[in-house]
């Protein structure tokens, strides 16, 4: 000011820098129990495992590019399949979700840390160690018992080597870590919310985090139980799944499907939460119906988990139970349908800014619609008898994996990247990346769906020349196009990972609130200090930043006219 008067800064944040670290930054980060460091390592590790998962997926697709291909040995193929599936589901899709939750949730609820900071570190390193263990098994003998290691195939009588043991340890450690972090997040959301931040005012992403955490507590515990029993049966004389000794293989199927159904929900929920944050911000208007959105997110967990037997329609289970599972899976269409209507209604009438997070969010909505409708079709028992275990079911799950953890996860990453790093990722790389992922997903999964209609099995190491009903002429073309599509999809993903790396190194500096967000994380500096906030504001609505901006504007408009024109200060 020309008169030397110092006005209060217009920005509402009140924060200070943290203490100067005495050790190297990487060492501080690795040892840190700070949720932001834990979250960032979680996300970085998940993206690293995504790259490894994509490599295994591409090798699998190369083997299946042409009929009766001998590129990869059957046992090697089964090992890639076993490790690759665990990588994409357990080492990428779940950790990217919990990494984002770990970083964002304390900031969104106005907390200075997680409820149990050291537990977060423990969960992170259990996961990283589990993942490293799984890939270290390529140095000797990886698992080869398929994506969920069903007994009796995974028993020592059929697979003597220790690959399955490593798989059990790796998946077990990771799931244990995720369950511990779920407990941590559930307690954090329950106990550490800012004053006035009632449950009804929670941001959609945090609310989806609460639901995901409870989902993982139930589903992950079931898997841990199954893994312990399987290991006891393999080496310690336990009898749980061996039909010859009085056990039953179907017990493991139930437990593992409870887990994988939970995983499926955790593919969806964080993406739903992130998309529900991004669409309003980039449309300039709030969610169409917040009550409907939150109720729908809450309903997904019980309905989804109770539908686990939807994956077991061909098993010897009394038909009444299968009707129950079909009903639960069908009922999911109501909350998920309501969420889609909400999203479309949110952008309707808005002023849409097609920035990178919005592009990825819209791509995620479209891709998820393909996957979820593909699943809806297979929910009905007689249709399930036709399509389950064919590549048609793989295609539907693949769409959800790409739409949820990949596109939804990247949308969230593009959205919160400025908060995490203080920089933005390149828009120039983001849009081609989204386009390639969407195109690659369609090129991969439409042919796989059609190949499934022709009867192509999942998990086979080769398909045969066209000669009969299940190997129609068109299978050759479907598989070749799907392989090309997989490479396009992979290129799109790698482009975004490169973009993130370049963004950390030299992205454009972003302000503390580059998108005009409405939730509390944008109240902190970018990146936030170790304690997140100097002052935690009282929350009066579900849009606390809008309230603060309104308050600042009111204060400024009610301020007397500029002093220099009337009376000088001092």
């Amino acid at each position, binding site marked *: 000011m020309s008169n030397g008067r110092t006005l209060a800064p217009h920005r509402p944040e009140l924060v200070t820098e943290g203490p100067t670290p005495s050790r190297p930054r990487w060492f501080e980060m690795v040892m840190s129990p700070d949720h932001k460091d834990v979250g960032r390592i979680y996300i970085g590790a998940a993206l690293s495992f995504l790259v490894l998962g994509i490599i295994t997926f591409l090798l699998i697709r190369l083997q299946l590019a042409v009929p009766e291909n001998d590129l990869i040995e*059957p046992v090697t193929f089964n090992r890639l399949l076993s490790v690759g599936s665990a990588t994409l589901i357990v080492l990428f899709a779940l950790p990217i979700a919990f990494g984002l939750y770990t970083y964002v949730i304390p900031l969104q609820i106005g907390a200075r840390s997680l409820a149990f900071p050291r537990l977060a570190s423990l969960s992170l390193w259990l996961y990283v160690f589990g993942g490293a263990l799984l890939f270290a098994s390529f140095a000797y003998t990886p698992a080869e018992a398929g994506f969920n290691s069903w007994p009796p*195939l995974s028993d020592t009588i059929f697979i003597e080597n220790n690959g399955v043991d490593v798989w059990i340890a790796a998946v077990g450690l990771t799931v244990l870590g995720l369950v511990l972090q779920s407990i941590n997040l559930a307690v954090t959301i329950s106990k550490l919310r800012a004053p006035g931040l009632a449950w009804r005012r929670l941001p959609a992403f945090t609310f989806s985090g609460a639901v995901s955490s409870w989902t993982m507590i139930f589903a992950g515990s079931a898997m841990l139980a199954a893994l312990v029993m399987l290991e006891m049966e393999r080496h310690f004389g336990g009898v749980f799944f061996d039909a010859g000794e009085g056990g039953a293989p179907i017990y493991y*199927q139930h437990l593992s499907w409870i887990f994988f159904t939970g995983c499926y929900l955790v593919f969806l929920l964080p993406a739903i939460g992130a998309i529900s944050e991004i669409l309003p911000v980039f449309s300039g208007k709030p969610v169409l119906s917040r009550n409907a959105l939150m109720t729908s997110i809450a309903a997904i967990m019980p309905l989804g988990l109770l539908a686990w037997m939807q994956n077991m329609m061909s098993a010897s289970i009394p038909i009444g139970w299968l009707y129950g599972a079909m009903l639960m899976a069908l009922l999911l269409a109501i909350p998920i349908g309501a969420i889609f209507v909400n999203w479309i209604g949110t*952008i309707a009438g808005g002023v849409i800014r097609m920035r990178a997070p919005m592009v990825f969010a819209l791509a995620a909505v479209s891709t998820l619609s393909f996957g979820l409708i593909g699943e809806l079709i297979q929910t009905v028992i007689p249709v399930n008898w036709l399509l389950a275990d064919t590549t048609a079911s793989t295609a539907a799950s693949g769409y959800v994996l790409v739409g949820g953890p990949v596109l939804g996860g990247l949308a969230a990453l593009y959205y919160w990247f400025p908060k995490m790093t203080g920089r933005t990722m390149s828009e120039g790389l983001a849009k081609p990346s989204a386009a390639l992922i969407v195109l690659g997903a369609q090129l991969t999964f439409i042919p796989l769906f059609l190949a499934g209609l022709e009867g192509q099995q999942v998990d086979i190491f080769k398909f045969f020349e066209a000669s009969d009903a299940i190997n129609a002429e068109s299978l050759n073309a479907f598989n070749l196009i799907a392989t090309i599509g997989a490479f396009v999809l992979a290129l799109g993903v790698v482009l975004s990972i490169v973009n993130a790396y370049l963004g950390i190194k030299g992205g454009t500096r972003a302000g503390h609130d580059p998108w005009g967000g409405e939730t509390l994380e944008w109240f902190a500096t970018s990146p936030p200090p170790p304690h997140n906030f100097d002052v935690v504001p009282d929350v009066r609505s579900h849009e606390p930043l809008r309230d603060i901006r309104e308050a600042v504007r009111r204060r400024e408009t009610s301020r007397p006219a500029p002093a220099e024109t009337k009376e000088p200060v001092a």
Partner: protein
Amino acid sequence: MNTLYWVMLVIGLVLLVAINLALIAMVMRFRSARGREPRRLVVRRPAQVGTAGVFALIVAFAFVFGVIETHNAKKVEASGPDGLQATSSLLAQRSLDLPATAPSSAPLKIKACGQQWIWRYEYPDGTYSYYELVVPVDTTVILNLCSTDVVHRWWVPGLSGKFDATPGESNSTWFKADETGTFDGASYAFSGASYAAMRTSVRVVDVPTYQAWLDQQAAGIQAAQTFVQQANGETGG
């Protein structure tokens, strides 16, 4: 079964097109423009209930239709007039203890056992075959599924749905082929190294051909057993 598949596919396609067209339309229509302010839509409770109601109707329809179709698919039909009849059934099923009052349209019960990596079919008279299942046309066939090692899943597209063959569990499916011909299928549960090669074939033939095949198969098995016994005797002697 196929009717329901097409109904669900049409419902799915309508929803898919509606969601994606709406997304594209909204993005085209509401791209940011200078000077325009966002217009907030107000959704009243009847609209919310109505939206949920539409999805609930789809769910109710799919569930009821699904239950009816499942019930129909589970209901075993009687064999047709061109199928294997009770009298010939008795001839064919040499060791089967059929009740005297067996209906003429009694189904043919065959045991289908999965083992790494082949299907073994055991007919009522004790005859068996590997890989290929031979059945008479217009005859209801009940397959009792079993496994001697790991979990397998039997499916021949065009004849039946998929059903698991799990060690220690009993499971069954049924089918009735209206025309002669060959139907190819496979196992659909991952079962280890040669899973991809675990295929199967169902050859549907007329009744006389079926009975001739059974006799020929039984004779072949008998000859093989005799040969093995002789070979063992020679080795043992």
